[in-house]
Protein backbone atom coordinates (compact mmCIF):
# COMPACT_ATOMS: atom_id res chain seq x y z
CA UNK A 1 0.00 0.00 0.00
CA UNK A 2 1.17 3.48 -0.73
CA UNK A 3 0.71 6.20 1.84
CA UNK A 4 -2.00 7.75 -0.32
CA UNK A 5 -5.56 7.57 0.92
CA UNK A 6 -7.90 4.76 -0.02
CA UNK A 7 -7.28 1.37 -1.64
CA UNK A 8 -4.98 0.81 -4.58
CA UNK A 9 -6.05 -1.72 -7.21
CA UNK A 10 -4.73 -4.66 -5.22
CA UNK A 11 -6.39 -3.26 -2.15
CA UNK A 12 -9.73 -3.15 -3.93
CA UNK A 13 -9.12 -6.69 -5.17
CA UNK A 14 -8.44 -7.87 -1.61
CA UNK A 15 -11.63 -6.18 -0.45
CA UNK A 16 -13.55 -8.05 -3.18
CA UNK A 17 -11.86 -11.28 -2.15
CA UNK A 18 -13.17 -10.83 1.39
CA UNK A 19 -16.69 -11.18 -0.03
CA UNK A 20 -15.95 -14.28 -2.11
CA UNK A 21 -16.19 -17.81 -0.79
CA UNK A 22 -14.76 -21.28 -1.30
CA UNK A 23 -16.49 -22.93 -4.24
CA UNK A 24 -17.81 -19.72 -5.80
CA UNK A 25 -18.09 -19.64 -9.61
CA UNK A 26 -16.76 -16.27 -10.70
CA UNK A 27 -16.22 -14.41 -13.96
CA UNK A 28 -13.62 -11.64 -13.91
CA UNK A 29 -13.97 -8.91 -16.50
CA UNK A 30 -11.00 -7.45 -18.32
CA UNK A 31 -9.13 -4.61 -16.65
CA UNK A 32 -9.18 -4.13 -12.90
CA UNK A 33 -11.25 -7.28 -12.10
CA UNK A 34 -8.53 -9.69 -13.30
CA UNK A 35 -6.35 -8.44 -10.44
CA UNK A 36 -8.63 -10.41 -8.11
CA UNK A 37 -7.02 -13.54 -9.57
CA UNK A 38 -3.67 -12.38 -8.17
CA UNK A 39 -4.94 -12.19 -4.60
CA UNK A 40 -6.88 -15.45 -4.36
CA UNK A 41 -4.90 -17.73 -2.00
CA UNK A 42 -3.58 -20.92 -3.58
CA UNK A 43 -5.53 -23.06 -1.11
CA UNK A 44 -8.88 -21.38 -1.80
CA UNK A 45 -10.99 -22.96 -4.54
CA UNK A 46 -12.66 -20.11 -6.38
CA UNK A 47 -13.66 -21.40 -9.82
CA UNK A 48 -12.90 -18.83 -12.48
CA UNK A 49 -14.92 -18.76 -15.69
CA UNK A 50 -13.71 -17.21 -18.90
CA UNK A 51 -16.30 -16.60 -21.58
CA UNK A 52 -14.17 -18.02 -24.39
CA UNK A 53 -14.81 -21.41 -22.86
CA UNK A 54 -12.80 -22.35 -19.79
CA UNK A 55 -13.75 -23.03 -16.20
CA UNK A 56 -11.43 -23.55 -13.25
CA UNK A 57 -8.16 -22.80 -15.02
CA UNK A 58 -5.13 -21.58 -13.08
CA UNK A 59 -2.89 -18.50 -13.21
CA UNK A 60 -0.50 -17.70 -16.11
CA UNK A 61 2.35 -20.16 -16.71
CA UNK A 62 6.00 -19.21 -17.06
CA UNK A 63 6.71 -17.86 -20.53
CA UNK A 64 8.34 -21.08 -21.73
CA UNK A 65 5.32 -23.18 -20.69
CA UNK A 66 2.62 -21.28 -22.53
CA UNK A 67 0.05 -23.30 -24.41
CA UNK A 68 -1.18 -21.43 -27.49
CA UNK A 69 -4.64 -23.00 -27.19
CA UNK A 70 -5.16 -22.16 -23.54
CA UNK A 71 -6.02 -18.54 -22.94
CA UNK A 72 -8.69 -16.47 -21.27
CA UNK A 73 -11.03 -14.05 -23.03
CA UNK A 74 -8.41 -11.33 -22.95
CA UNK A 75 -5.84 -13.58 -24.64
CA UNK A 76 -3.87 -14.12 -21.41
CA UNK A 77 -2.31 -17.55 -21.03
CA UNK A 78 -3.70 -20.03 -18.49
CA UNK A 79 -2.64 -23.22 -16.80
CA UNK A 80 -4.67 -26.38 -16.29
CA UNK A 81 -5.77 -26.81 -12.68
CA UNK A 82 -7.36 -29.94 -11.25
CA UNK A 83 -11.10 -29.86 -11.91
CA UNK A 84 -10.86 -27.53 -14.90
CA UNK A 85 -12.95 -27.95 -18.05
CA UNK A 86 -13.25 -26.50 -21.56
CA UNK A 87 -16.35 -25.99 -23.71
CA UNK A 88 -17.72 -23.97 -26.59
CA UNK A 89 -19.30 -20.49 -26.63
CA UNK A 90 -22.80 -21.89 -26.59
CA UNK A 91 -22.26 -23.70 -23.29
CA UNK A 92 -20.13 -20.84 -21.97
CA UNK A 93 -22.90 -18.30 -22.45
CA UNK A 94 -25.50 -20.72 -21.16
CA UNK A 95 -23.53 -20.60 -17.92
CA UNK A 96 -23.46 -16.82 -17.97
CA UNK A 97 -26.92 -15.90 -19.16
CA UNK A 98 -28.51 -18.87 -17.44
CA UNK A 99 -27.76 -17.75 -13.90
CA UNK A 100 -25.09 -20.32 -13.11
CA UNK A 101 -22.32 -17.86 -12.21
CA UNK A 102 -22.34 -16.86 -8.57
CA UNK A 103 -20.53 -13.60 -9.13
CA UNK A 104 -19.52 -11.50 -12.12
CA UNK A 105 -16.94 -8.87 -11.27
CA UNK A 106 -16.87 -6.25 -13.99
CA UNK A 107 -15.18 -2.97 -14.70
CA UNK A 108 -17.33 0.05 -15.51
CA UNK A 109 -17.31 3.58 -16.85
CA UNK A 110 -20.47 4.46 -14.94
CA UNK A 111 -22.99 2.86 -12.60
CA UNK A 112 -26.35 4.37 -11.71
CA UNK A 113 -28.13 4.40 -8.37
CA UNK A 114 -30.64 2.01 -9.96
CA UNK A 115 -27.91 -0.48 -10.85
CA UNK A 116 -27.65 0.42 -14.52
CA UNK A 117 -24.24 -0.53 -15.90
CA UNK A 118 -22.29 1.36 -18.60
CA UNK A 119 -19.05 -0.42 -19.34
CA UNK A 120 -18.64 -0.89 -23.06
CA UNK A 121 -18.84 2.33 -25.03
CA UNK A 122 -17.63 5.85 -24.59
CA UNK A 123 -19.55 8.54 -26.47
CA UNK A 124 -18.39 8.72 -30.08
CA UNK A 125 -16.49 5.43 -30.17
CA UNK A 126 -17.08 3.70 -33.52
CA UNK A 127 -15.54 0.32 -32.73
CA UNK A 128 -16.58 -0.18 -29.10
CA UNK A 129 -17.03 -3.85 -28.24
CA UNK A 130 -19.69 -5.28 -25.98
CA UNK A 131 -18.11 -8.74 -25.91
CA UNK A 132 -19.80 -10.86 -23.28
CA UNK A 133 -20.56 -8.02 -20.87
CA UNK A 134 -24.26 -7.72 -21.64
CA UNK A 135 -24.96 -11.44 -21.32
CA UNK A 136 -22.87 -11.71 -18.17
CA UNK A 137 -24.52 -8.78 -16.48
CA UNK A 138 -28.09 -9.89 -17.16
CA UNK A 139 -27.31 -13.47 -16.17
CA UNK A 140 -24.98 -13.69 -13.19
CA UNK A 141 -26.52 -14.17 -9.75
CA UNK A 142 -24.54 -11.17 -8.46
CA UNK A 143 -22.96 -8.41 -10.52
CA UNK A 144 -20.25 -6.52 -8.69
CA UNK A 145 -18.35 -3.62 -10.21
CA UNK A 146 -14.72 -2.69 -9.53
CA UNK A 147 -13.76 0.81 -10.65
CA UNK A 148 -12.09 4.06 -9.67
CA UNK A 149 -14.60 6.14 -7.77
CA UNK A 150 -14.09 9.10 -10.08
CA UNK A 151 -12.69 9.71 -13.54
CA UNK A 152 -9.15 11.02 -13.89
CA UNK A 153 -10.56 14.53 -14.20
CA UNK A 154 -12.67 14.20 -11.07
CA UNK A 155 -16.09 13.36 -12.50
CA UNK A 156 -18.29 11.00 -10.54
CA UNK A 157 -18.88 7.53 -11.98
CA UNK A 158 -21.67 6.70 -9.54
CA UNK A 159 -24.58 8.69 -10.88
CA UNK A 160 -28.31 9.16 -10.65
CA UNK A 161 -28.43 8.16 -14.30
CA UNK A 162 -25.69 6.92 -16.61
CA UNK A 163 -24.83 9.20 -19.52
CA UNK A 164 -22.90 6.54 -21.46
CA UNK A 165 -24.52 3.79 -23.53
CA UNK A 166 -25.83 1.07 -21.21
CA UNK A 167 -24.65 -2.51 -21.00
CA UNK A 168 -27.70 -3.59 -18.99
CA UNK A 169 -30.34 -2.04 -16.76
CA UNK A 170 -30.72 -2.59 -13.02
CA UNK A 171 -28.14 -5.33 -12.67
CA UNK A 172 -25.32 -4.05 -10.41
CA UNK A 173 -25.63 -5.10 -6.77
CA UNK A 174 -22.38 -3.82 -5.27
CA UNK A 175 -19.57 -1.43 -6.25
CA UNK A 176 -15.97 -1.57 -5.02
CA UNK A 177 -13.87 1.55 -5.57
CA UNK A 178 -10.67 3.07 -4.23
CA UNK A 179 -12.85 5.05 -1.76
CA UNK A 180 -15.58 2.70 -0.64
CA UNK A 181 -17.81 -0.34 -0.93
CA UNK A 182 -21.34 0.65 -1.85
CA UNK A 183 -24.46 -1.48 -2.21
CA UNK A 184 -27.17 -0.75 -4.71
CA UNK A 185 -30.48 -1.33 -2.99
CA UNK A 186 -34.09 -0.89 -4.07
CA UNK A 187 -34.00 2.50 -2.34
CA UNK A 188 -30.68 3.64 -3.82
CA UNK A 189 -27.00 3.66 -2.89
CA UNK A 190 -25.96 2.50 0.58
CA UNK A 191 -22.46 2.93 2.00
CA UNK A 192 -21.11 -0.38 3.27
CA UNK A 193 -17.51 0.50 4.06
CA UNK A 194 -15.18 3.47 3.69
CA UNK A 195 -11.57 2.97 2.60
CA UNK A 196 -8.82 4.00 5.04
CA UNK A 197 -8.15 7.73 4.98
CA UNK A 198 -11.59 8.73 3.70
CA UNK A 199 -14.76 9.72 5.52
CA UNK A 200 -18.37 9.02 4.58
CA UNK A 201 -18.62 12.68 3.68
CA UNK A 202 -15.67 12.35 1.26
CA UNK A 203 -17.37 9.44 -0.47
CA UNK A 204 -20.72 11.24 -0.67
CA UNK A 205 -19.03 14.30 -2.16
CA UNK A 206 -17.45 12.14 -4.88
CA UNK A 207 -20.76 10.44 -5.70
CA UNK A 208 -23.42 12.03 -7.88
CA UNK A 209 -26.42 10.32 -6.30
CA UNK A 210 -27.84 10.19 -2.76
CA UNK A 211 -25.78 7.89 -0.53
CA UNK A 212 -27.29 6.41 2.61
CA UNK A 213 -24.98 5.37 5.44
Amino acid at each position, binding site marked *: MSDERGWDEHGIARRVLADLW*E*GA*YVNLGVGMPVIVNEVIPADM*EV*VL*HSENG*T*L*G*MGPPPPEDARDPDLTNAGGGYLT*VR*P*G*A*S*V*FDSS*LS*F*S*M*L*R*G*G*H*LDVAILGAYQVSAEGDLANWKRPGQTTAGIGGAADIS*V*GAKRVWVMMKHQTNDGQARLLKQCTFSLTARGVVKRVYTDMAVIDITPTGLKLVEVAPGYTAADVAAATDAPLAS
Partner: protein
Amino acid sequence: MIDKIVGSVREAVAGIADGMTVLIGGFTDVGAPFQLLDGLYETGAKNLTVVANGAGAGERGLAVLVREGRVRKIICSFPTGSVAARDAIARGELELEVTPQGTMTERMRAAGAGLGGVLTPTGLGTELGEGKPVYELDGKAYLVERPIHADFALIRAWKADRWGNVAYRYAQRNFNPVMAMAASCTVVQVDELVDGQGLAPMEVDTPGIFVHRVVRVDRGAA
Protein backbone atom coordinates in the same frame (compact mmCIF):
# COMPACT_ATOMS: atom_id res chain seq x y z
CA MET B 1 -12.29 -27.72 -0.70
CA ILE B 2 -14.99 -28.27 -3.27
CA ASP B 3 -16.46 -31.72 -2.87
CA LYS B 4 -19.80 -32.52 -4.44
CA ILE B 5 -19.53 -36.24 -3.83
CA VAL B 6 -22.05 -37.62 -1.37
CA GLY B 7 -21.89 -41.02 0.24
CA SER B 8 -25.35 -42.40 -0.41
CA VAL B 9 -28.32 -42.23 -2.72
CA ARG B 10 -30.37 -41.00 0.23
CA GLU B 11 -28.16 -37.94 0.62
CA ALA B 12 -28.14 -37.47 -3.15
CA VAL B 13 -31.91 -37.04 -3.37
CA ALA B 14 -32.43 -35.25 -0.05
CA GLY B 15 -34.68 -32.22 -0.37
CA ILE B 16 -36.96 -33.47 -3.11
CA ALA B 17 -40.35 -32.51 -1.72
CA ASP B 18 -44.04 -32.69 -2.55
CA GLY B 19 -45.07 -30.62 -5.55
CA MET B 20 -41.59 -30.22 -7.03
CA THR B 21 -40.62 -30.49 -10.69
CA VAL B 22 -38.03 -33.19 -11.40
CA LEU B 23 -36.18 -33.86 -14.66
CA ILE B 24 -35.28 -37.50 -15.25
CA GLY B 25 -32.56 -38.32 -17.77
CA GLY B 26 -32.20 -41.30 -20.05
CA PHE B 27 -33.56 -42.62 -23.33
CA THR B 28 -35.11 -46.05 -23.00
CA ASP B 29 -32.88 -47.45 -20.22
CA VAL B 30 -29.65 -45.87 -21.47
CA GLY B 31 -28.47 -43.03 -19.25
CA ALA B 32 -31.45 -43.47 -16.93
CA PRO B 33 -30.73 -42.93 -13.20
CA PHE B 34 -32.52 -45.96 -11.79
CA GLN B 35 -30.83 -45.86 -8.37
CA LEU B 36 -31.71 -42.19 -7.93
CA LEU B 37 -35.31 -43.02 -8.85
CA ASP B 38 -35.32 -45.71 -6.19
CA GLY B 39 -34.03 -43.05 -3.81
CA LEU B 40 -36.71 -40.61 -4.91
CA TYR B 41 -39.31 -43.29 -4.22
CA GLU B 42 -37.95 -43.71 -0.71
CA THR B 43 -38.29 -39.98 0.04
CA GLY B 44 -42.04 -40.36 -0.20
CA ALA B 45 -42.33 -37.15 -2.24
CA LYS B 46 -45.62 -36.91 -4.10
CA ASN B 47 -47.59 -34.58 -6.34
CA LEU B 48 -44.51 -34.38 -8.54
CA THR B 49 -44.22 -32.93 -12.02
CA VAL B 50 -41.81 -35.05 -14.04
CA VAL B 51 -40.08 -34.27 -17.32
CA ALA B 52 -38.64 -37.31 -19.07
CA ASN B 53 -38.57 -38.84 -22.51
CA GLY B 54 -40.99 -41.59 -21.57
CA ALA B 55 -43.77 -41.92 -19.03
CA GLY B 56 -42.48 -44.96 -17.18
CA ALA B 57 -42.17 -48.03 -19.31
CA GLY B 58 -41.44 -51.37 -17.71
CA GLU B 59 -41.62 -52.14 -14.02
CA ARG B 60 -39.06 -49.90 -12.35
CA GLY B 61 -37.96 -46.31 -12.00
CA LEU B 62 -40.55 -43.80 -13.15
CA ALA B 63 -43.08 -46.59 -13.75
CA VAL B 64 -43.18 -47.32 -10.01
CA LEU B 65 -43.63 -43.65 -9.09
CA VAL B 66 -46.48 -43.33 -11.58
CA ARG B 67 -48.13 -46.56 -10.52
CA GLU B 68 -48.03 -45.49 -6.87
CA GLY B 69 -49.74 -42.20 -7.70
CA ARG B 70 -46.78 -40.01 -6.78
CA VAL B 71 -46.68 -38.13 -10.08
CA ARG B 72 -49.28 -35.47 -10.85
CA LYS B 73 -48.06 -34.51 -14.29
CA ILE B 74 -45.61 -35.82 -16.89
CA ILE B 75 -44.17 -33.76 -19.70
CA CYS B 76 -42.65 -36.23 -22.16
CA SER B 77 -42.31 -37.08 -25.82
CA PHE B 78 -42.87 -40.82 -25.86
CA PRO B 79 -45.35 -42.24 -23.32
CA THR B 80 -46.11 -45.11 -25.69
CA GLY B 81 -45.96 -48.41 -23.88
CA SER B 82 -46.28 -47.04 -20.36
CA VAL B 83 -48.96 -49.17 -18.80
CA ALA B 84 -48.49 -47.30 -15.53
CA ALA B 85 -49.22 -43.96 -17.21
CA ARG B 86 -52.17 -45.31 -19.18
CA ASP B 87 -53.74 -46.64 -16.00
CA ALA B 88 -53.04 -43.50 -13.96
CA ILE B 89 -54.63 -41.39 -16.68
CA ALA B 90 -57.64 -43.69 -16.68
CA ARG B 91 -57.89 -43.26 -12.88
CA GLY B 92 -57.83 -39.49 -13.39
CA GLU B 93 -54.63 -39.17 -11.34
CA LEU B 94 -52.15 -38.16 -14.02
CA GLU B 95 -51.96 -35.27 -16.44
CA LEU B 96 -49.94 -35.99 -19.58
CA GLU B 97 -48.34 -33.31 -21.78
CA VAL B 98 -46.89 -34.81 -24.94
CA THR B 99 -44.27 -32.59 -26.55
CA PRO B 100 -42.01 -33.21 -29.53
CA GLN B 101 -38.66 -34.53 -28.38
CA GLY B 102 -36.63 -31.73 -29.91
CA THR B 103 -38.97 -29.16 -28.43
CA MET B 104 -38.70 -30.73 -25.00
CA THR B 105 -34.93 -30.56 -25.29
CA GLU B 106 -34.94 -26.93 -26.38
CA ARG B 107 -37.33 -25.93 -23.61
CA MET B 108 -34.99 -27.32 -20.96
CA ARG B 109 -31.99 -25.83 -22.70
CA ALA B 110 -33.72 -22.43 -22.80
CA ALA B 111 -34.20 -22.61 -19.04
CA GLY B 112 -30.57 -23.57 -18.52
CA ALA B 113 -29.30 -20.94 -20.93
CA GLY B 114 -31.35 -18.04 -19.57
CA LEU B 115 -33.45 -17.65 -22.71
CA GLY B 116 -37.07 -16.60 -22.49
CA GLY B 117 -38.06 -19.21 -25.05
CA VAL B 118 -37.45 -20.34 -28.60
CA LEU B 119 -39.31 -20.13 -31.89
CA THR B 120 -39.73 -23.51 -33.55
CA PRO B 121 -41.51 -24.75 -36.67
CA THR B 122 -42.08 -28.14 -35.00
CA GLY B 123 -45.71 -28.84 -34.18
CA LEU B 124 -47.14 -25.83 -35.98
CA GLY B 125 -50.58 -26.48 -37.45
CA THR B 126 -51.01 -29.72 -35.55
CA GLU B 127 -52.51 -30.90 -32.28
CA LEU B 128 -49.00 -30.66 -30.81
CA GLY B 129 -49.07 -26.88 -31.13
CA GLU B 130 -52.55 -26.33 -29.73
CA GLY B 131 -52.75 -23.61 -27.10
CA LYS B 132 -49.22 -22.39 -27.73
CA PRO B 133 -48.53 -18.84 -28.87
CA VAL B 134 -47.62 -18.35 -32.52
CA TYR B 135 -45.13 -15.69 -33.60
CA GLU B 136 -44.54 -14.59 -37.14
CA LEU B 137 -41.05 -13.45 -38.08
CA ASP B 138 -39.97 -12.41 -41.56
CA GLY B 139 -43.07 -13.96 -43.08
CA LYS B 140 -42.80 -17.33 -41.41
CA ALA B 141 -44.85 -18.59 -38.45
CA TYR B 142 -43.38 -20.40 -35.46
CA LEU B 143 -44.55 -21.77 -32.15
CA VAL B 144 -43.20 -19.92 -29.13
CA GLU B 145 -41.95 -22.57 -26.73
CA ARG B 146 -41.46 -21.72 -23.06
CA PRO B 147 -38.51 -22.72 -20.88
CA ILE B 148 -38.88 -25.68 -18.51
CA HIS B 149 -37.02 -25.07 -15.27
CA ALA B 150 -36.95 -27.68 -12.54
CA ASP B 151 -36.18 -28.02 -8.86
CA PHE B 152 -34.14 -31.18 -9.35
CA ALA B 153 -32.53 -33.03 -12.23
CA LEU B 154 -31.70 -36.69 -11.74
CA ILE B 155 -29.20 -37.85 -14.31
CA ARG B 156 -26.83 -40.68 -14.98
CA ALA B 157 -23.31 -40.72 -16.33
CA TRP B 158 -20.14 -42.73 -16.51
CA LYS B 159 -17.52 -40.80 -14.55
CA ALA B 160 -17.42 -37.74 -12.34
CA ASP B 161 -15.00 -35.95 -10.01
CA ARG B 162 -15.34 -33.94 -6.81
CA TRP B 163 -15.84 -30.72 -8.79
CA GLY B 164 -18.96 -32.22 -10.35
CA ASN B 165 -17.42 -32.61 -13.80
CA VAL B 166 -19.15 -35.40 -15.69
CA ALA B 167 -18.41 -37.66 -18.67
CA TYR B 168 -20.92 -39.95 -20.37
CA ARG B 169 -20.41 -43.27 -22.14
CA TYR B 170 -21.68 -43.50 -25.71
CA ALA B 171 -25.45 -42.99 -25.92
CA GLN B 172 -25.77 -42.21 -22.21
CA ARG B 173 -25.71 -38.53 -23.02
CA ASN B 174 -29.14 -38.02 -24.58
CA PHE B 175 -31.10 -35.57 -22.37
CA ASN B 176 -28.68 -35.66 -19.44
CA PRO B 177 -26.42 -32.69 -20.37
CA VAL B 178 -29.40 -30.42 -21.06
CA MET B 179 -31.26 -31.49 -17.94
CA ALA B 180 -28.14 -30.80 -15.88
CA MET B 181 -28.38 -27.15 -16.95
CA ALA B 182 -32.06 -26.70 -16.23
CA ALA B 183 -32.43 -27.55 -12.55
CA SER B 184 -31.73 -25.73 -9.31
CA CYS B 185 -30.16 -28.93 -7.98
CA THR B 186 -28.62 -31.44 -10.38
CA VAL B 187 -27.81 -34.87 -9.01
CA VAL B 188 -25.78 -37.37 -11.00
CA GLN B 189 -25.24 -41.06 -10.41
CA VAL B 190 -22.06 -42.46 -11.91
CA ASP B 191 -20.28 -45.76 -12.27
CA GLU B 192 -16.86 -44.32 -11.45
CA LEU B 193 -15.41 -41.53 -9.37
CA VAL B 194 -12.22 -39.95 -10.63
CA ASP B 195 -10.03 -38.76 -7.78
CA GLY B 196 -6.79 -36.81 -7.73
CA GLN B 197 -6.75 -34.27 -10.56
CA GLY B 198 -10.26 -35.21 -11.69
CA LEU B 199 -11.34 -35.57 -15.30
CA ALA B 200 -9.06 -34.00 -17.90
CA PRO B 201 -10.49 -30.69 -19.17
CA MET B 202 -11.21 -32.01 -22.67
CA GLU B 203 -12.83 -35.17 -21.28
CA VAL B 204 -15.58 -33.24 -19.50
CA ASP B 205 -19.02 -33.34 -21.12
CA THR B 206 -20.98 -31.53 -18.40
CA PRO B 207 -18.85 -29.02 -16.46
CA GLY B 208 -19.18 -29.04 -12.69
CA ILE B 209 -20.90 -25.66 -12.56
CA PHE B 210 -24.11 -27.44 -13.58
CA VAL B 211 -23.77 -30.28 -11.07
CA HIS B 212 -24.56 -30.10 -7.36
CA ARG B 213 -24.27 -33.66 -6.09
CA VAL B 214 -22.48 -36.78 -7.30
CA VAL B 215 -23.04 -40.30 -6.05
CA ARG B 216 -21.38 -43.49 -7.17
CA VAL B 217 -23.56 -46.54 -7.60
CA ASP B 218 -22.60 -50.06 -8.48
CA ARG B 219 -23.10 -50.52 -12.20
CA GLY B 220 -24.09 -54.10 -11.55
CA ALA B 221 -27.05 -52.82 -9.54
CA ALA B 222 -28.34 -50.93 -12.55
